[in-house]
């Protein structure tokens, strides 16, 4: 244990960090919240959702992929930054088909919780209304791609944790989409199991266990009980 831990500042607060830690992880560990979607503590930083944008010495950067370094001056809770994060969340709601009232993941959904955190009340932009498939081939789990936000957490979990590589991405830009690694494209034709890490990492409602809908009533779910900010800081603080 080093005694003279080095620090950077976040909105003027001194944040200590360990070598190799990102600005995001160090901030969370120090009890300061920066919202994020595609990151999962313990997974390699991804940098794709861009919700955790901060300004480092005046430069806009994703805090999850920015290594903490002594003396950095980081801005986070500044109105123009928060406005940008709000826009990005609106983009995601605009891009997919997010109908929360009928979604089994509502209340447990991180996209929704980030929206609440940032005060998003509308997607604002004309919806893309994409036609996306629902894969009901697997006996244990439904795959509803309408909600997919392309964060690749399931891709990464399946490849790196489960060592199965059941999921991948195809297309690009507006046609980018999640694919199941089988010639049929069906989840049933893979080695996927409901016990996989990939089955439990989705921040939205793509992975739905069959035969157990709405066990917890709306209003009593994860982020209904505990706002995202509190939950994330509790997890990072290890309490």
């Amino acid at each position, binding site marked *: 244990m080093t005694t003279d831990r080095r620090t950077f500042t976040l909105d003027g607060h001194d944040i200590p960090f360990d070598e190799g830690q990102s600005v995001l992880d160090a901030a969370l560990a120090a009890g300061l919240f920066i919202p994020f979607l595609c990151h999962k503590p313990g997974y390699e930083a991804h940098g794709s959702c861009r919700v955790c944008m901060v300004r480092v010495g005046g430069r806009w950067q994703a805090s999850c992929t920015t290594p903490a370094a002594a003396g950095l001056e980081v801005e986070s809770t500044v109105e123009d930054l928060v406005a940008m994060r709000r826009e990005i969340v609106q983009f995601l709601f605009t891009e997919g*088909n997010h109908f929360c*009232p009928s979604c089994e993941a509502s209340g447990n959904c991180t996209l929704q919780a980030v929206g609440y955190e940032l005060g998003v*009340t*509308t997607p604002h932009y004309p*919806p893309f*209304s994409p036609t996306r498939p629902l894969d009901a081939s697997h006996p244990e789990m439904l795959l509803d791609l309408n909600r997919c936000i392309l964060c690749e957490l399931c891709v990464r979990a399946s490849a790196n944790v489960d060592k199965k590589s059941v999921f991948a991405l195809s297309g690009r830009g507006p046609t980018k989409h999640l694919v199941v690694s089988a010639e049929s494209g069906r989840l049933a034709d893979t080695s996927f199991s409901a016990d996989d890490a990939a089955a439990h990492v989705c921040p939205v409602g793509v992975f739905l266990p069959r035969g157990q809908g709405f066990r917890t009533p709306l209003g009593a779910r994860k982020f209904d009980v505990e706002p995202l900010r509190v939950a994330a800081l509790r997890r990072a603080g290890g309490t």
Partner: protein
Amino acid sequence: MPSPKLRVATTSLAGCFGCHMSLLDIDERLSSLVELVEFDASPLTDLKTPVACDVGLIEGGLCNAENVRTLLLFRRECKVLVAVGACAITGGLPAQRNALDVRDCLESVYLTGVGLEGGTIPRDRELPLLLEKVHPIHDVVNVDYSLPGCPPSADAFWAFFEDIAAGRAPRLGHGLIRYD
């Protein structure tokens, strides 16, 4: 001298009136509300046509031509237009048909569905034609504020009215923004 009451109009387009029900759920605060506002066109007054209102509350999305015409009328007559509830804001439940072809929908319902024989698709000019897709209201008009939720809670409605009556920009605090 008391300031004049806000004239408020409300309507439900492609909605279920659940948002209106939630508005009534403000319970005893209704009596305070009528001190602040006066209802113009609304299912509550059974008046159909808004005239020179301060606030228009729109429940439901745009499913057919009549929805669009009503919305345009409200936009014209209301200084502040508010999208109320998931359907007005995103298209909501009716928008679940957007993955289907509207022609297939009509044919399946009136012509080819199980048990149908010799059916016809209604073509009365009294019946509004369906839009190809269901749209949120911001696809057609400028929307000033949104009250999300299915429905927005009574507290959210109340907070909104308190703000707007006090001349503040409505802002939903924590716990009042919900999408479900």
